[in-house]
């Protein structure tokens, strides 16, 4: 059954191990709609990392069905799943995960490879994305020449340069000091738009508080899924052009 949700999980389980089965996710059903700002919270071992792998199309459900933009991901081969991942999801990691031997612009351009773009067009889009996070002047710096906050902003530029429908962040402020963390969270607020949903996996309550919806997990199940009325509504989104 397909529907208009951006992402939809139905009775999804993710089980690791053959002899001793570990239910990292246990019959989870939920959906994320276009333009939502969601946080997924929970203690260690609650299954939120597994959830992140599934939402990011890096992993497949052991049981149950998952749809992304109406497509059942189990029916996709690696190439189609990779393409869908590249089109729909933009990843932001706790450890930034920039490619060390490439400068900021080339790191951002990496997300635009194999998309039939001319180098000039790729460069133009990468520079526009770096401009959104305020790092266009540092486009030729390598990751080692930048602070953690700057590296995370380059990673955000890399995530948004493909104009994904979902920004998927894994503890995006976990490796940053409070100033840089606030800075990054502000960028998330700015990037949130009706066309761009954001899902942040975190254990930090202040990060979760920025979201409009909070999904709480424990022992591989969703224990709470609540709309946060006091979250600041976002009225504008960052634009690339």
């Amino acid at each position: 059954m397909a529907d208009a949700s951006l992402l939809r999980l139905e009775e999804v389980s993710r089980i690791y191990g053959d002899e001793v089965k570990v239910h990292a996710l246990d019959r989870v059903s939920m959906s994320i709609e276009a333009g939502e700002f969601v946080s997924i919270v929970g203690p260690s071992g609650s299954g939120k990392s597994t959830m992140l792998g599934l939402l990011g199309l890096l992993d497949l459900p052991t049981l149950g069905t998952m749809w992304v933009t109406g497509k059942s991901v189990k029916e996709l081969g690696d190439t189609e799943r990779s393409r869908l991942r590249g089109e729909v999801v933009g990843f932001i990691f706790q450890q930034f995960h920039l490619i060390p031997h490439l400068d900021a612009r080339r790191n951002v351009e990496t997300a635009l490879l194999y998309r039939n773009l001319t180098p000039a067009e790729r460069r133009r889009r990468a520079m526009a994305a770096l401009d959104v996070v305020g790092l266009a002047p540092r486009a030729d710096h390598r990751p080692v020449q930048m602070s953690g906050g700057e590296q995370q902003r380059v990673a955000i530029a890399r995530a948004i340069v493909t104009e994904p429908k979902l920004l998927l962040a894994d503890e995006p402020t976990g490796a940053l000091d409070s100033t840089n963390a606030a800075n990054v969270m502000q960028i998330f607020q700015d990037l949130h738009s009706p066309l761009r949903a954001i899902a942040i996996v975190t254990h930090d309550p202040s990060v979760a508080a920025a979201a409009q919806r909070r999904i709480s997990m424990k022992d591989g199940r969703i224990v709470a899924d609540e709309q946060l009325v006091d979250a600041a509504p976002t009225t504008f989104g960052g634009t690339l052009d």
Partner: protein
Amino acid sequence: MRSIRDLIGVALSGLTARVSRTLLIMLGPIIGVSAIVAAVGLTESAKGDLQQDLAELGTNLITAEAAGSFGTQNPTFPEDVRDRVLALSGVESATATQSITGVVTAPYDAAATYYTAFPTPVLTADSAFLEVMQIELRSGRWLNDFDYNTGARVAVIGLDVANEFEYRAGTNRTIQINGLDYGIVGVYEPVKLVTNFNTAVLIPPLTADNDFDVGLETNTIYVRADPTRVVEVEEALPVAINLGGSDEVNTSVPSDALEAAAAADSTLQIIVASMGILALVVGGVGIANVMSISVIQRSAEIGIRRALGHGRSVIAWQFLLEAVAVGFFGGLGGLAVGVLIVVYASHIAGWTYVLEPVLVVGGYEFPSEFLGVPTIYVLGMGAALFTSVVAGLYPSVKAARLEPLETLRLG
């Protein structure tokens, strides 16, 4: 097409990011290809002069020697042997000689004992000698009609004799043959096809008969044949010389030996080229080894690329292309080093270097060119590329199999 260009860009940026490591693993293909190119090129260059000689000397000189039946002393040809041979169809020119035995040639009296032990051959020569041997005089003049008709004691000597006797062009010198003084009138250039002549003294037939009572009959005749009819002429010579008589004639083509020596020595080529292939294989193992480690070191990068939407096949191609690029540029470097070795070693050895060598493996001679490039370079590059593809297969499959979830350490 743009995806392929993207892939090449990613592969090259991966290599240029680690220049010293890239250069190190390139050493394998460089050494392997240069060894192959140098091996084949040098074995050919070592013979380059021979081949050049062959082209200059021609392969149409035939030697016919008088051979008596068992027990015959000093067999000779009939006196009119040269006319008989020249009458043969396909014969262009001929010169007959008689080697004179039992004489001692020396620069002066006191040296006679030495030159008895190490004799210098003395032969008679007619006026066609230089033409048939296709050589020039180094200095002086050839035997003239006066010499031939009067039996004058004159001699023309080979370059080696001139050097040994320390003859200087333009000086009046004599040499002694059995104690008789002969005036040296000329020195001829080396005869490469019949090297015996280089150490010989040539005198007019009449003089030889007068002084040593050897008769005017000759025992060896050199024949230049129409190059397309050499075999035919060689077969006809014995009959033409003897007119069906009982005496025997042995014929040979001196250039045959030279041709054999100049033919590509495939055994040596194979041995040295095998070492090159061995170096390539070891180099390939090096590439596979280093790239496997590189895949582990770059597992985070691979995970990121997968998260950014690059499929497994794209990752596999990226690492395979890195290996192929190492093979390609290493191969090119190997060609350059190989050519340098051939040119420089040939220079040291005094050879004429051959950069388009003939390659013979197992009796099969490869075409000299492939798509306008000498075959050996095409084969060298092909071997380097093949090795790198094989070497890159394992690391690239390993890279493609990495699970991004495991390398990215989420949550």
